């Protein structure tokens, strides 16, 4: 069972307390953007086998959105961080590098 630590209320929340919200750090395109940009934003996904960054909501808890760094191949959790972050915190990137040397995800590595 997946257990994620909510970075807001500090609770170790198990899966039924959380709702998954898909890929994190998507760039949201607005009016005037190209079809390709919209396709990217709405549909194209990283879907990696390995290190992944996702949005989760502590739905049956404090109700807040946060981000999680996970491995989709082992279900290992590398860390969670606030939804207001534009990129995963350096500490989490470092923790991932320790376990998955050479990892990359979009522009992060």
């Amino acid at each position, binding site marked *: *069972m997946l257990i994620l630590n909510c970075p807001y209320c500090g609770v170790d929340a198990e899966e039924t307390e959380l709702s998954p919200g898909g890929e994190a750090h998507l760039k949201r395109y607005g009016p005037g953007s190209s079809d390709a940009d919209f*396709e990217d934003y*709405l549909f194209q*996904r990283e*879907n*990696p086998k390995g290190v*992944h960054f996702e949005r989760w909501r502590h739905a049956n808890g404090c109700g807040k959105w946060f981000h999680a760094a996970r491995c989709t*191949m082992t279900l290992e959790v590398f860390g969670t961080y606030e939804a207001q972050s534009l990129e995963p915190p350096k500490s989490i990137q470092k923790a991932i590098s320790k376990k998955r040397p050479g990892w990359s995800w979009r522009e992060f590595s």
Partner: protein
Amino acid sequence: MKRYSAFAVAREALRFHSGWERAWRSPAPKKKYDVIIIGAGGHGLATAYYLGRNFGIRNVAVIEKGWLGGGNTGRNTTIIRSNYLQDPSAAIYEKARGLYENLSQDLNYNIMFSPRGVMMLAQTQHEVRGYQRTAHANALQGVTTEFIGPQKVKELCPIMNIDGPRYPVLGALWQPRGGTARHDAVAWGYARACSDMGMDIIQKCEVTGVRQSGGKVVGVDTTKGAIDCDKLGVVVAGHSGVLADMAGFRLPIESVALQALVSEPIKPCMDVVVMANTVHGYMSQSDKGEMVIGGGADGYNNYTQRGSFHHVEETVRALVETFPIISRLKMLRWWGGIVDMTGDRSPILSKTPLENCFINCGWGTGGFKAIPGSGWGMAELMAKGHSPLTEGFSLDRFKEGRFIDESVAAGVAH
């Protein structure tokens, strides 16, 4: 290939079964093929089969990292139906269902197609209207379905509790020629027929790279060395994103776990397939007597072939209310598969940005029923560059907004 027949069974019975052949060869890969298909699931094997049968293209290899049929094709709950809402879906799923009717004869392999009838329960007013609409759409598409009332539901499936406290059964969308088939047999039957045509099925061989030159695909790197090809078909379900990454393009796909489970075998008690989309569960009885149960997919990316326990709990809870008779059954086996979900819940059968590289994926939670039709269309697409069956399912529909929205028809994973 020696044909299977009643006569063959009698002949072998008289000589201690010493005359059966291996169903398919296990050759070492050649240096080059006209066509390489990656993935020996049902869709990959069917694509190869119809390339040979319909287009005479037989210098074909099907490359599989595990064992053939060991992916979702051997993990699904085998529901076959074609009662979808949109025209392109009805066309490809009904083509598949029609091919299933004679597939055992066609392949000379008993795939145990059992058109026992599939009903999708309407348990809210919204569903009643939705399924009535689907029944009308199906009538126009030439797919035989009917909206039936609760009494008919009870007649067809006496073990069902139609007046449950929360979600009484208000009716159902009934497809009398839907049903089930033996999933492994579908893969094995196609594999045997492909091998018989001289195609190479190469198991325990993982594709690790897609080689290209001048924007065209020229071959693949594998754990058994590099293999050249003129055309490449990528048919790897949950691993489509991984292969697309090797080929240098992106996909509108997320891979998630979908689970199923079967009970201990019991006496025959249910001779139809029942799906309950509102409460999220479906059930049928296998020929061995096991109740075959499935429900919803997980909500997050996962490649482990293991899913979340609470989804199984929700499914079983809903089904116990609908079928009180199963409340004391022990569950025997429980497993998961990694399904490839697209944004509009419809598959992708398409050319790709890499020339001569084609992809067939996105069948998600419901592609077993489509295997023959998908193979038929994909083979035509790869041989001729276009196919009426696959036209609507191209990759560029996501850019152009031409969605084939089946999120309602596919309300529950099946």
